[in-house]
């Protein structure tokens, strides 16, 4: 098993895995506590449109996905905040329409593009050096922003009304949070895939939620579970000859169920 670590593509995938596992889990803590799982899934599916657009115009699909996902996140946020429809309805509308745009873009392309499949379900082999740098850049960006606005993000997640009342710009912090979700989705799709990325955001944090009643500990545990699942899943997927994204997600899901069984929250 150790010889696979010698391959450059595996080293790249592991680097990406550690980063993605950590960033997804950290953002996942806010997503789980604020009940934004569906928004996460919606933004993830929107990235399909972004990726397809990248292939169509011939730019790195990760870059077009960044623009696409941010636009979708803000779209959902604006529609939901206007109060015309409920948040989950807004997600439902964007969820399908951005996928539809993706399908439209693919139709416009000459011939069938195999790479697109890698984005849907994730692929270790697909991680190029350029992808790794983009992932690293976006990941560091997300980590730094979370660090800078740590107290505001916690407060707005816990009690947005009170945050607003005491002078914390709750609306802006909410948009910051959904933007961070969008960026996290984009930096993860190459390894875990569009279909599975929301699981990597939600599951480690959901497992950690069941293990502690302390916020900082929840974040630490979520990151450990996320990184552990990403690395473990990648290493397992090679000898088992399974899809990397699916293996990572199922490993995280197993940890979630084990956490549920030992949870001190059970009452």
């Amino acid at each position: 098993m150790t010889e696979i670590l010698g391959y450059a593509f595996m080293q790249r995938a592991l680097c990406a895995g550690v980063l993605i596992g950590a960033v997804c889990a950290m953002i996942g803590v806010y997503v789980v506590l604020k009940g934004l799982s569906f928004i996460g899934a919606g933004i993830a599916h929107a990235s399909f449109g972004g990726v397809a657009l990248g292939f169509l115009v011939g730019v790195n699909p990760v870059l077009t996905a960044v623009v696409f996902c941010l636009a979708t996140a803000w779209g959902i946020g604006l529609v939901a905040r206007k109060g015309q429809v409920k948040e989950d309805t807004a997600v439902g509308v964007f969820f399908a329409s951005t996928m539809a745009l993706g399908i439209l873009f693919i139709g416009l392309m000459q011939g069938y593009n195999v790479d697109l499949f890698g984005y849907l379900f994730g692929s270790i082999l697909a991680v190029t050096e350029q992808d790794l740098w983009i992932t690293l850049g976006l990941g560091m960006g997300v980590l730094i922003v979370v660090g800078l606005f740590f107290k505001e993000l916690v407060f707005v997640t816990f009690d947005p009304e009170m945050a607003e009342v005491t002078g914390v710009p709750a609306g802006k912090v909410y948009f910051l949070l959904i933007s961070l979700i969008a960026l996290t989705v984009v930096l993860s799709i190459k390894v875990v895939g569009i279909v599975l990325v929301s699981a990597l955001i939600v599951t480690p944090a959901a497992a950690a939620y069941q293990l502690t009643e302390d916020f900082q500990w929840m974040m630490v545990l979520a990151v450990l579970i996320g990184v552990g699942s990403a690395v473990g899943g990648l290493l397992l997927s090679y000898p088992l000859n399974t899809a990397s994204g699916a293996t990572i997600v199922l490993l995280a899901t197993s940890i979630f169920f084990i956490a549920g069984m030992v949870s001190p929250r059970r009452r």
Partner: protein
Amino acid sequence: MENPTIVQLDHVSVTYQDLVVLEDVSLKVPCGSFLAIIGPNGAGKTTLLKVILGLVRPVSGEVRVFDKTPWELNGDRRRIGYVPQVMFVDLNFPVRVGEVVLMGRYGRIGLLRQPTATDHAAALRALECVGITDLADRPIARLSGGQRQRVFLARALANEPELLLLDEPTTGVDVTSTESLYELLHGLHEAGITILVVSHDVGVVASYVDGVACVNRRLVAHGRPDEVLGSAELAQMYGCDAMFFHHGRAPHLVVERER
């Protein structure tokens, strides 16, 4: 001499879509008063607080808080402490009592800054003030109703407010805790804080406050507790003949018969 006015509402109306929640409400809260806002469920009491806090904008009328409109309070926000209804907060959120109380100061601390020793000291004083210093490290999921209410009161006090707004602070709290909470508020009032409390437990509230405002979409009555609570308007508001018996400190609302 009349104290300066801290909150002033002039002909304020609020609607949610087509529903009129508050209509033509005018109210003056002088500095240093302890006012109860009572009224039946859905009467617009919570909305009234949210108007004062700047969370809800009226469709007509004027609101002044500390002589500014509530949404332009900026730095003066810290002069208001707010204790929302507990039921709107996720009580399983993984957070400890001490952190919740410190959150009260996050707005004042500002973006990109960490809480200083001053902030921690203020949070600790707030915990002491409500008598729950020993609970500082307890996760909020492991508190009784009365303890929880004190945590949210401490969070409001962490900002050293001059005006304290409480929304149904005794919902889901037992009788003993309710009375000790009001004793606590009484002490804060004595210390010079202006208090506005929304409540539907008319009886308990009456013995502590120096003014009662009855709200049922409109401001039905406003005055000293003994004037308001015996009034025909109150009986009319609750849709039944009501009488108050003064029994010890707390008058009790007795419903005589339904109409």
